[in-house]
């Protein structure tokens, strides 16, 4: 970026030079012409005044007079001669002859000289002839008196001969003079005409010049006025500017300093006038070097560049100024530096206030999150206790039916409360913009199948048919994404559909479509045959705490947050969610999320382990929990499950106990006095008798970042409170599943997963009761001699399905249909199938009953 150069001031447009030339040259020519004419006139006047000759007319005309005077003298002398030689008048008469001859002679000299000098109009050579004649005659005149008297007649004849010639000469000369005078007058007239013409031309040019000068003068004056106005406007602008403006000359001295500058810097104009900028003490950063650099057009001199500099007030306080600089030339072409300075202290303060307000708001949001986290902890802890206590109570076989019913209500209510807390926490978690956990590889088919399977009991309870069509996922449905969020959305949508549909069908379809760059779009739709939702409610239904019918909600046990959570989760994954429904026609909820291709090189992300058959071997378990209630409940649960428990109250005690005795499992509350769970886990692993024990953490903090912190701290296995029997059983099974202890059922007769699920979701005594009921039911069918009806067979099929006797379930179904169709049933086949299934179920019952008796022991 080149610094801008001020435009050079040009020395006036070239056309003005041409204009001047156009005026000056003709003017000079006119003046020259007039001067030449004037000089010529002057010369002529001069020659007229100084009269290079006297009156030649007189001089010439006098020739005849002189000639006649001489003739008269000769006449008189001739008369005296005839009077006699002694006549007294002779001598004076002869003297007169001589005198008049001399005069005539001198006239001839003058004329001769004139003709030689001027070569006048007379070219007849009369003057020269006259002169020669006079010289000849002079010899006779100069003779003594006597000889002269004798030659008088000859002289008289000579003169008479000269007279007509002289007359012609005089006349022709006069004529010449007349025409010469005419010529001279004509010349003078021409000269005067020329002079007048030159004068007129000069006058025209002078008038034009004056006119041009007037025009130029006016233009110049207009330009000067404009310039003055522009400069005055500029001064007003500078003066009226709210920002400080300082103009400095090429030496960096202050030329202009506006009122705003005086106000902002608190210094008078007089205090800084003519002072170099770096000594004016206005802006700290404007050192001499910097000002020179600006004047030289350094990088800062670009007017678009804004710098924040430090201003200095007269009272010594510093304040931020935003500065920009520009260079230009003044009217005389001298460099100017213009400094525009704005006091930005108020803006800076406003910025700081805004930042504080934002920080406060963020802090408030964090406080809300903390509050929710604390609340969840505070509510989960008592719920933990309540649910665990209810678990223990339900295990009591001595309960009356009425008590058991109330216990169920209490248990369901507690679980509902926990669900509500979890939903609220989920919302908080999604709103908190927490950094999402790193994406993991997901087997979509496995994930969705599990979700569908987990919802089957609920669907069955509401007499809904539950179907899944995963064919659209393709052969390998492996992607990379947020497992927990996907799971959450699918579970919520599926759970919702089941909850709001009774005696209908719920169908989940999923498909993957390719996207650019190897990505894939997962599209999941959940369709139900429920009551449907009015179009005007489609938007509202995704909002928090919004349900269409509060009575329905209560019946379905929802919090009103499920769809809100689903929407947030989908948005967080960059997808969208929709609803297609009309009242009476069921509803279809769907969502689409883009997913990355699975990282095939990465380790398989293990799916949540399927519930496995309960651990049968009693384990040695060390627990550390500072809450007396929680410790007692946890101990009771573990004992109910048939394990040996050692209790400690904090991390330190746990470490000591673990060092002294070998434990299979150590369960540590994370937040404990003296030593927390994370640290205790590190100590236990570090050495001692239980160094190889499985260490599990327990926390009431369900926030993702908290869990991540605990895992990173050294407790990879963390369970969120409340702890239930099912959770404990699943947890311990995952740790120490002993394959040898399992009794593998013959494949195809008993599905072990059904029983495991049952055991996982219901307390052991309940499972035992269910098993007892089923055994009794089917035993009755297969009793020898019994002839059951189709209703009996139907009940038996249900019982068989409940305990996982899948082959018997199918056979009973076939038999029932056969009886209804009037055909005979294969009783022997049924009974032999029952004989094969029965021992497995008995063994399971015995194991479950064992744990129950261990609890009471």
């Amino acid at each position: 970026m080149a610094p801008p150069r001020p435009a050079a001031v040009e020395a006036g447009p070239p056309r003005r030079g041409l204009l001047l030339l156009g005026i000056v040259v003709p003017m000079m020519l006119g003046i020259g012409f007039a001067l030449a004419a004037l000089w010529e006139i002057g010369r002529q006047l001069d020659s007229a005044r100084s009269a290079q000759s006297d009156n030649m007319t007189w001089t010439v005309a006098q020739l005849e007079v002189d000639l006649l005077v001489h003739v008269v003298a000769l006449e008189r002398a001739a008369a005296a001669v005839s009077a006699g030689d002694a006549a007294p008048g002779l001598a004076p008469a002869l003297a007169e002859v001589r005198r008049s001859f001399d005069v005539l002679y001198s006239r001839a000299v003058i004329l001769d000289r004139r003709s030689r000098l001027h070569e006048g109009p007379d070219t007849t050579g009369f003057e020269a002839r006259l002169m020669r004649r006079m010289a000849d005659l002079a010899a006779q005149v100069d003779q003594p008196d006597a000889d002269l008297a004798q030659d008088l007649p000859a002289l008289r004849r000579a003169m008479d001969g000269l007279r007509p010639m002289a007359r012609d000469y005089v006349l022709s000369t006069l004529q010449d003079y007349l025409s010469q005078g005419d010529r001279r007058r004509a010349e003078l007239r021409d000269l005067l005409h020329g002079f007048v013409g030159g004068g007129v031309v000069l006058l025209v040019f002078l008038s034009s010049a004056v006119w041009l000068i007037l025009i130029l003068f006016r233009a110049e004056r207009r330009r000067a006025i404009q310039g003055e106005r522009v400069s005055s406007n500029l001064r007003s602008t500078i003066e009226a500017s709210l920002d400080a403006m300082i103009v400095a000359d090429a030496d960096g001295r202050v030329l202009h300093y506006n009122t705003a500058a005086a106000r902002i810097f608190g210094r008078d104009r007089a205090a800084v006038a003519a002072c170099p900028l770096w000594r004016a003490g206005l802006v700290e950063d404007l050192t001499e070097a910097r000002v020179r650099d600006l004047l030289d057009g350094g990088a800062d001199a670009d007017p678009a560049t804004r710098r924040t500099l430090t201003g200095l007030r007269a009272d010594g306080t510093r304040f931020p100024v935003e500065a920009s600089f520009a260079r230009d030339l003044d009217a005389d072409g001298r460099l100017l530096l213009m400094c525009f300075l704005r006091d930005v202290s108020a803006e800076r303060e406003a910025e700081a206030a805004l930042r504080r307000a934002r920080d406060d708001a963020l802090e408030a949001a964090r406080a809300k999150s903390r509050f929710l986290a604390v609340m969840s902890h505070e509510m989960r802890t008592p719920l933990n206790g309540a649910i665990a206590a209810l678990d223990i109570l339900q295990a009591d076989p001595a309960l009356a039916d009425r008590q058991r019913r109330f216990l169920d209500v209490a248990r369901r209510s507690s679980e509902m409360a926990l669900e509500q807390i979890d939903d609220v926490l989920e919302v908080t978690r999604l709103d908190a913009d927490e950094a999402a956990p790193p994406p993991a590889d997901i087997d979509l088919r496995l994930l969705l199948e599990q979700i569908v399977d987990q919802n089957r009991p609920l669907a069955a309870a509401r007499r809904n048919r539950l179907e899944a069509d995963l064919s659209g996922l393709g052969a390998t449905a492996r992607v990379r994404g947020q497992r927990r969020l996907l799971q959450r959305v699918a579970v919520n949508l599926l759970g919702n559909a089941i909850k709001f549909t009774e005696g209908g069908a719920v169908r989940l379809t999923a498909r993957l479509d390719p996207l650019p760059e190897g990505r894939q779009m997962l599209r999941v739709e959940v369709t139900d045959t429920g009551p449907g939702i009015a179009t005007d409610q489609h938007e509202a239904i995704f909002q928090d705490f919004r349900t269409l019918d509060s009575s329905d909600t209560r019946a379905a046990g929802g919090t009103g947050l499920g769809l809100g959570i689903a929407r947030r989760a989908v948005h967080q994954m960059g997808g969208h969610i929709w609803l297609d429904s009309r009242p009476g026609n069921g509803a279809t909820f769907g969502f689409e999320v883009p997913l990355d291709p699975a990282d095939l090189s990465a380790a398989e992300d293990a799916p949540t382990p399927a519930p496995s058959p309960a651990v049968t071997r009693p384990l040695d378990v060390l627990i550390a929990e500072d809450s007396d209630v929680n410790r007692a409940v946890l101990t009771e649960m573990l004992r109910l499950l048939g394990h040996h428990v050692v209790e400690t109250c904090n991390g330190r005690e746990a470490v000591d106990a673990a060092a002294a005795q070998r434990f299979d499992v150590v369960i540590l509350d994370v937040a404990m006095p003296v030593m927390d769970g994370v640290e205790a886990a590190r100590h236990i692993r570090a050495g001692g008798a239980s160094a190889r024990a499985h260490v599990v953490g327990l926390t009431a903090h369900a926030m993702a970042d908290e869990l991540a912190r605990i895992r990173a701290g050294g407790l990879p296995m963390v369970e969120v409170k409340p702890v239930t029997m099912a959770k404990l059983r699943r947890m311990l099974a995952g740790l120490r599943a002993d394959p040898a202890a399992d009794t593998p059922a013959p494949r195809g007769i008993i599905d072990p997963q059904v029983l495991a699920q049952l055991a996982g979701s219901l307390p052991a005594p309940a499972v035992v009761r269910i098993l007892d009921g089923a055994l009794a039911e089917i035993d009755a069918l297969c009793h020898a001699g019994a002839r059951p009806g189709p209703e009996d067979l139907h009940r038996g099929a249900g019982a068989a399905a409940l305990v996982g006797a899948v082959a018997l379930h199918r056979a009973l179904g076939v038999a029932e249909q056969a009886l209804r169709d009037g055909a005979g049933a294969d009783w022997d086949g049924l009974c032999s199938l029952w004989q094969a299934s029965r021992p497995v179920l008995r063994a399971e019952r015995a194991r479950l009953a064992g744990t129950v008796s261990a609890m009471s022991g």
Partner: protein
Amino acid sequence: MRGLVVLILTICLALPGLARAGDMAQPSGTPILRVDGLVGHTNAEGAALFDLAMLDSLPQETFTTSTIWTDGRLSFSGPSLAAVLAAAGATGTRVVARAVNDYSVEIPLAEIDARFPILATRIDGKTFGVRDKGPIWIVYPYDAEASFRTEVNFGRSVWQLAVLTLAD
């Protein structure tokens, strides 16, 4: 005796008009100039006659100049007109100069200064005769100043001068 001479001189001085024929020396040679009219000193009846010697005895002016009537630059010398008029005790306001050929011109006395014009009696140191515009020629130093080269002055440059007549 001395008293008588003083008396006569006093009368002569007091009454110049009465002084006639005799208060100026007679020319010894041929008179070449006659000054008459209002003159104070005379040596003839009502006139002062000058021969060449008398003119030569007056203070001489010499200058070199060209003229429109002659070739080249010539040296003219002779007494100034003013000196000659003074010698004749001339009064009045004008003088009429007349030549041998009866040419005449009037010159106001006010236009005659102490030195110029002169009555030239010599050209290049030699006297000159009537045939050469002599023997007396009224000459101005034309080359010296333009003001001398006027038609009026050319007209006043009378050659073959014979008579000067003073009048009121």
